[in-house]
């Protein structure tokens, strides 16, 4: 994507248009809607204050008919760089073949959707859902302006005009004019009218939204090697940075061999940071080699230094069992204590989840260049929060934000890691020290060991069943580190449970933790859904029918469960040694249900997933093929996490360093089939980037329970753990 014709004036005000050379540029505004089903305690939770200001979406129509639509969201593989412009182009009635897509400037006041406080953050699967209504409105406004200009020019009533792709039509006089031609004379109204919802396109007339043939705009560049990630940027005079960071979070460095290091040819500077020592050198290979030669003494006494993840579970267990302890209530309903007393049987279980690492394929990196006089700066990075990254760079450089230009690039994976700005701040600090453009590269080891992990946690569940064996009381206590990150997905809005209590008892180990694809939904839905199956199993009830009863008051949720059961042929006779597991989970407003069919090698402990079926209700599906790809991806990343992934901490230090000891899913582990179905819906879109991930863990655990009668209660389900479980009496 060329940045050259991207508008970047920060002075543009909303509800104003710019007459750009050789065409017309609209700034049109509308409020973004709130995702309706947001039940997340963290990234998807939106408060009433978040509604705030309106958003702007931009389009530039050139006289030759080319239409440039500016995409405000990060492109990290989720496809919103295509989906968002498609929404706008739908209402504009643009000829898609004439549409070009470019990143919008990082101006959150103009491009940040009101729905999350005017922040330009691409998180929580919210890009499409957050921008959907506002981009439809903005596209419709742009179309209105074109038609209004034609009405005046031809002196015909606006109501007699219609559009076809990139054409304004006057049927009465059999005339038509292209959008490009209109752009050459169009003027903008003083005030942009709000297009009533009834005048937006009837979804049955959508040509782009829901069209399975719309391809991702980034695909050609991603198969010929030309797609630019920040790591690929090279600029004249650039030098290279590498940083040796504290192995224990919070410890401070003292460099012991600075004089010796400075003598090495090619070393430009050494920079002491609060959490590490930076090397700046003339080549990347030099920077990396020298980094390995740094002799650093680390301060002792950091909080994290006493943390050992394997032992933390004992602490959490004690915490959740302590009846005098009161954590933070996430939800209470009815009278739990009485309901548990009245129960005909009470069950309890605890589930564990290790720390996870994001493992995005492109390690963190950023390039920062300070102008020779130090009065302005440029930043090249891939970020899920480019507005924060820009502000962070400005802060480190001592500049006003308006003096920093950030060029967004494709992200080689984000998964929540790239909504932090630590790597941009570091690059800014190095650039400030050496007054040269510095490209900072994190090695894989840096990226893993100075990671911000999905928190370790333990879920304690207790449930009472009534005479009929149905769950009547539900007690849920979550413990672990990472505070609010643990809360997402703990609630079960689609299950009818009149007496319930959900509580969080968090501990701070001084570790760096972060949102990780689907956040707390991964661990929490695993615990909830596995526990439900354990109870159903003991009650000798079919887990599908058992859930149907729990979901009886929520037809939208029930629909995905019934759909997936039908897809998989739930209840059919399976070959010997096979079993199915079923689960339900919602994430980012999208209810989803999954079934997997597994077999087990009892000698090695290896679980094989043969088939996966998923049914998801994402409302209107903007890009069906990409939505499917996202669901496939979130299911496979989920599979990776439940079979392989674990970061263990000893005395504050991560025990893993690269893909040899932090393995992720390989091609040999993919199922034979993976079938995804979306529910036909006219509802506004909800998030699909993470929807599959939360239900794959419990689907496998539940299939394992069906196959062996034993419950897997600690993710990941490694062969060692499986063998240990099989040998339990």
């Amino acid at each position, binding site marked *: 994507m060329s940045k050259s014709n991207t508008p970047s004036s920060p002075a543009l005000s909303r509800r104003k248009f710019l007459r750009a050379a050789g065409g017309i540029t609209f700034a049109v505004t509308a409020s973004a809607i709130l995702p309706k089903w947001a039940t997340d305690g963290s990234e998807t939770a939106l408060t009433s204050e978040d509604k705030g200001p309106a958003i702007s979406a931009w389009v530039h129509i050139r006289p030759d008919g080319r239409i440039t639509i500016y995409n405000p969201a990060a492109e990290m593989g989720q496809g919103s760089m295509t989906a968002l412009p498609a929404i706008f182009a739908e209402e504009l009635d643009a000829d898609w073949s004439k549409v070009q897509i470019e990143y919008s400037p990082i101006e959150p006041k103009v491009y940040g959707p009101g729905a999350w406080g005017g922040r330009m953050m691409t998180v929580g699967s919210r890009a499409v859902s957050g921008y959907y209504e506002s981009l439809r409105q903005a596209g419709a406004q742009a179309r209105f302006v074109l038609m209004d200009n034609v009405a005046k020019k031809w002196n015909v009533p606006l109501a007699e005009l219609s559009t076809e792709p990139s054409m304004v039509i006057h049927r009465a006089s059999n005339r038509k004019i292209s959008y490009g031609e209109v752009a050459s004379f169009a003027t903008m109204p003083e005030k942009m009218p709000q297009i009533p919802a009834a005048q937006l396109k009837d979804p049955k007339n959508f040509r782009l939204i829901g069209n399975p043939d719309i391809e991702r705009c980034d695909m050609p560049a991603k198969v010929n090697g030309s797609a630019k990630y920040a790591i690929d940027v090279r600029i004249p005079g650039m030098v290279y940075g590498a940083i040796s960071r504290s192995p224990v979070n919070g410890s401070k460095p003292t460099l012991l061999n600075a004089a010796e290091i400075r003598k090495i040819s090619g070393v430009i500077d050494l920079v002491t940071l609060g959490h590490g020592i930076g090397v700046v050198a003339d080549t990347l290979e030099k920077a990396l080699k020298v980094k390995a030669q740094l002799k650093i003494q680390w301060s002792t006494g950091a909080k994290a230094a006493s943390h050992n993840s394997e032992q933390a579970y004992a602490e959490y267990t004690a915490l959740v069992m302590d009846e005098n302890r009161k954590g933070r209530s996430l939800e209470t309903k009815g009278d739990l204590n009485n309901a548990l007393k009245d129960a005909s049987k009470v069950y309890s279980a605890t589930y564990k989840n290790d720390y996870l690492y994001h493992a995005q*394929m492109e390690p963190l990196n950023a390039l920062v260049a300070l102008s020779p006089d130090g009065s302005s700066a440029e930043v090249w990075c891939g970020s899920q929060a480019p507005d924060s990254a820009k502000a962070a760079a400005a802060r480190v450089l001592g500049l006003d934000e308006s003096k920093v230009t950030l060029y967004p690039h494709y992200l080689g994976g984000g998964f929540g890691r790239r909504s932090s700005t630590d790597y941009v701040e570091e690059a800014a600090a190095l650039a400030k020290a050496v007054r040269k453009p510095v490209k900072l590269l994190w090695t894989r080891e840096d990226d893993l060991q100075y990671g911000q992990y999905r928190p370790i946690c333990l879920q304690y569940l207790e449930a009472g069943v009534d005479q009929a064996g149905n769950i009547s009381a539900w007690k849920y206590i979550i413990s672990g580190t990472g505070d609010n990150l643990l809360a997402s997905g703990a609630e079960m809005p689609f299950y009818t449970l009149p007496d319930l209590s959900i509580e969080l008892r968090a501990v701070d180990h001084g570790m760096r933790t972060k949102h990780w694809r689907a956040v707390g939904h991964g661990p929490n839905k695993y615990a909830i859904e596995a526990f439900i199956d354990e109870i159903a199993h003991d009650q000798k009830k079919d887990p599908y029918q058992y859930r149907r009863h729990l979901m009886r008051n929520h037809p939208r949720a029930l629909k995905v469960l019934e759909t997936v059961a039908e897809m998989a042929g739930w209840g059919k006779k399976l070959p010997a040694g096979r079993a199915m597991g079923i689960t339900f989970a919602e994430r980012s407003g999208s209810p989803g249900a999954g079934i997997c069919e597994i077999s087990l090698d009892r000698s090695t402990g290896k679980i094989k997933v043969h088939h996966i079926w998923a049914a998801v209700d994402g409302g209107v599906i903007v890009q069906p093929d990409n939505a499917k790809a996202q669901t496939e*991806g979130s299911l496979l990343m989920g599979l990776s996490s439940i079979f392989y992934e674990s970061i263990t901490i000893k005395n504050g230090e991560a025990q893993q360093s690269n893909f040899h000891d932090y393995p992720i899913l390989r091609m040999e582990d993919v199922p034979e089939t993976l079938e995804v179905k979306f529910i036909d819906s006219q509802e506004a879109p909800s998030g699909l980037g993470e929807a599959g991930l939360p239900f794959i863990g419990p689907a496998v655990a539940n299939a394992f329970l069906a196959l062996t009668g034993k419950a897997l209660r600690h993710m990941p389900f490694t062969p060692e753990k499986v063998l240990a479980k099989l040998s339990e009496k």
Partner: protein
Amino acid sequence: MATYTLTINGEKKTLNAEPDTALLWVLREHLGLTGTKYSCGKSYCGACTVHLDGQPIRACVMPISAVEKRSITTIEGLSANADHPLQKAWLEEQVAQCGYCQSGQIMQAAALLNEKKKPSREEIISHMNGVLCRCGTYMRILKAIELAAKEI
């Protein structure tokens, strides 16, 4: 520092580098061929896969001193107009998500199809197993390779 002459995508390139400099840094930072990606630096993930005399290798662990006078092909040189059957199949199947591993995936797959026109699914999996994808595009990679194998 030494001077090396390499043949990359059919063109002779001369550059100065330390003998132990990884081919990956030479390609990316010295020559600007950034389609080949850095991801693990230890040959665990395959993102940096290029062809050395037609064989797939991991450029991150290959010192420049070992590749002089040999022929290197990167994603940029795989086909004249990004029209290798695999690249076309990748578009057809809309394989990529973040896209970062895909150069390595395609180069690894291209080496397979050079050796074997009609690989079985098992052969594809065994050949591709060392190239990691975090976005989870493996199902589509498989389909795309099978599709390309039909076209060849």
